[in-house]
């Protein structure tokens, strides 16, 4: 398997960053190359860092989920508001995946981290909770293999490919 011969796109620090309660934005596209979008509520990275799993609120992400099912294309933006540090990860094998025990705890933990990050910046806690809310029964799990990752922090290095 040539895929496994390559080092993972994400290094350990990237994996910690994307699971640290940063904001998550997920996009895909349809057959007509129209992009779809949804905010994510959590992220889990496999131990070997070759698989990224995202959680989205399903009712607000129907077009995105249809597009992922149809085209498997995905781009995810992770951003830390206090530092503006932003990375984007892209993949081409995205699919709806099964939830695992502990996923809801991950979502809850990352939500609390996000609140701790955003409230000191002046965002009202009820607004943050509402924006990143997902009913447990509505959480949909999407998993993909990162093909590439890019720095996206505003400034001269935005768009540079990250070396793992």
């Amino acid at each position, binding site marked *: 398997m040539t895929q496994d011969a390559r080092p993972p796109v994400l290094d350990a620090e990237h994996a910690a960053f994307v699971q640290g309660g940063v904001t998550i*934005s*997920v*996009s*895909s*596209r349809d057959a007509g*190359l*129209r*992009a*779809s*979008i*949804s*905010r994510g509520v959590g992220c889990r990275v496999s131990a070997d860092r070759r698989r990224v799993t995202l959680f989205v*609120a399903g*009712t*607000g992400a129907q077009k995105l989920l249809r597009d992922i099912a149809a*085209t498997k*294309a*995905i*781009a*995810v*933006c992770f*951003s830390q*508001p206090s530092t*503006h540090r*932003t990375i*984007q990860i*892209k993949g081409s094998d995205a699919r709806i995946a099964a939830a695992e025990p502990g996923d809801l705890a991950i979502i809850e933990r990352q939500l609390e981290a996000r609140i701790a990050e955003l409230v000191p910046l002046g*965002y009202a806690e*009820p*607004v943050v*909770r*509402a*924006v990143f*809310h997902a009913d447990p029964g509505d959480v949909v799990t999407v998993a993909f293999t990162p093909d590439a990752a*890019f720095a*996206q922090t*505003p*400034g*001269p290095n*935005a*768009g540079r490919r990250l070396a793992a």
Partner: protein
Amino acid sequence: MWLTLDAIRECFEGAIPSLVATCAPDGTPNVTYVSQIHYVDAAHVALTYQFFSKTRENILANPHATADVIHPLTAAQYRLALEYLRTETEGPLFESMKAKLAGIASHTGMAGVFRLLGSDVYRVHAIEHVPGKALPAPQPKRNLLAALRTASDRLTRCGDFASLLEAALESLDALLGIDHAMILMLDARRGSLYTVASRGYPASGIGSEIPLGVGVVGMAAKEGTPIRISYATAEYAYGRAVRDAAEKLGMANMLETEIPLPGLATSRSQLAVPIVTCDHATGVLYVESPEDRRFRYEDEDALVAIAALVGATIHALQADEREEDAPQAANAPAPVAGPPVVVRRYAANDSVFLGDDYLIKGVAGAIFWKLLRDYANEGRTEFTNRELRLDPSLRLPDIHDNLEARLVLLARRLEERCGVMRIEKVARGRFRLCVSRPVQLVEVAG
């Protein structure tokens, strides 16, 4: 499409970053945060183009994009189907987005990183409300439409320029809760704006000037568009910025620098709207606040409507500037007493000093000097607007120039700086110079 863009304008205040997703021709999607999605009109928005990015590369090849915006108070989310149309790199849209971005940049610690290269204009094809959790909208503090109704009634009843200025600023305070405001009029020939009225400052700053194109006030007049900033930003702060710009433009000598601009030391919200008379920006209504995000789209709507009423009323008053027959008071100077006041006038820029104290310069200075000469040589005290307009020595700029505004400026400076002379209105188009001490006129050449 059930929702209109107007109904979700709060989402475009820049309080919560928006998301934009695009797709490359090879089918690779891309998603990014944007610091500002700007409401252009009921069918268009504009995004900031700050540096060449994947988003930009994508939309140039495939113009369809999807944006996700959030209402900053209710957390309601909306998704917009967009189509890229064009990029504007100058003009009203560009300048209003540049100013707004400067506020966002300084608020988020990105001053010097965020820099507007262009305004990317998109058509909005569809707006979708994203199902999800939302909070109830907070109760508004006041009804701006009702406030506007009362203000319009007050403004359109004003019979002269001075009471119009007063009514406008009083209405902002009493009806809209805006207690730091000023009105500046355009001096098109000199490319500057001069303050004719202000409210809510320790010193009125009447007579102070701003070059056209500088700061939110100068840019609102230059581009004929509202300029609104929701956070403190050094880039659009007054005082020093205005002086620096004046020097750069070589206007230092001509620009009024003796009279400091009124204005808050730290303005956290600024809004300037042009006052338009007969299709020309003739002045600016400027408001500010020490609070972040004090002025929203609806405040901008109300201010634009009030400025339009001020502009239309100015036009109506100018068109109706025939002199009224006032009872001819004895046109003889009242008796004067006390030591003489030395009034010096420097011909180079028409600046006038009372003793050692600076009073005024420019057109208002030239008018004052003419009044004093006629008073000293002929004993005249009553004058008409018409004779000032016809007097070639005053070189009044053109018919669009608001002579009433110059007279209000002069009258207010005299009120503030001089206890010996004042100007009072006798009737429409007529006024009187009142002098209580002997005056000695000294003309200084050059």
